[in-house]
């Protein structure tokens, strides 16, 4: 699907503030409410954008600890990625899984209520994942910026 300047303008405002009601989004993008709604429907139908999803603040639910775990996998094992990812999906405290080209192969975002629980998850659920060659941990101190905006 080709997008034009109007679509791009709507997307820019939508991604900058995904919670905006349609009427306000339309106003910011300088189109009518009906146009805005139709354009969004079309982009959703084409798979360019997903329906808005709620963002869960895990900290407000009592998960005080968030750690970014960076893994190197044993690449002599051809099924290392698939088996590692399948096992990681079984750990409820894993909230995101990313794969990379670079020094890191896979990254898992792990949350826990406190350091004691984190240590338990780390020992019992993370270190037991298959085909790990190396792990590095980055502990999140603060998120300074988090946006989905694209420089469209």
């Amino acid at each position, binding site marked *: 699907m080709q997008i034009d300047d109007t679509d791009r303008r709507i997307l820019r405002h939508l991604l900058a503030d995904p919670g905006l009601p349609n009427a306000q989004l339309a106003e910011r993008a300088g189109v009518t409410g009906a146009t805005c709604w139709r354009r969004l429907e079309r982009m959703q139908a084409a798979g360019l954008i997903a*329906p808005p*999803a*709620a963002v869960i*603040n895990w900290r407000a639910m009592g998960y005080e600890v968030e750690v970014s775990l960076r893994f190197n996998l044993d690449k002599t094992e051809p099924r290392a990625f698939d088996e590692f990812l399948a096992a990681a999906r079984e750990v*409820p405290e894993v909230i*995101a899984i990313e794969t990379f*080209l670079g020094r890191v192969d896979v*990254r898992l975002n792990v949350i826990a209520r406190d350091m004691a629980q984190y240590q338990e998850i780390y020992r019992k659920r993370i270190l037991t994942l298959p085909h790990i060659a190396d792990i590095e941990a980055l502990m*999140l101190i603060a998120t300074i910026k988090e946006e989905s905006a694209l420089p469209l």
Partner: protein
Amino acid sequence: MMDLDDLDRALLRSLSRDATTSAGELGRRLGLSQPAAWRRVKRLEEAGIIAGRRVAVDRPALGFGVTVFLGVKLATKGRVSLEDFERAVTAIPEVQVVQHVLGLFDYRLRVVARDIADFERVLRRRIMTLPGVGQVEANVLLTEEARPGPLG
């Protein structure tokens, strides 16, 4: 902190897939009346557990074919250098996420670019010129997957 029951967790699971699901539809799925579902959603919003919305986009289809995570170590430290760095890095439009972390690096950045050449431009002109920047490690994102987290 708010105590959540199974219905709250089921609501969060539904809304984290599609935040536009109506209270009527949520109620039907969970065996609640429309007003009861609405009240629960409202309570989760007021407790800060539902912290807004996000819209996932097909970045390559919109012309952003490359997402890179950067680990950045500052060369000089101290309160002033952290603030200078944070102010400058959050102003870069291609930088979507800035996290202050503890470990191998001081900051994690998520950077979007049109292609590798565009990424090189952002890296050289914008990132490497940031105040206090030291060692930088880049990993190119291949796949990403958001998991439901401990809501089961």
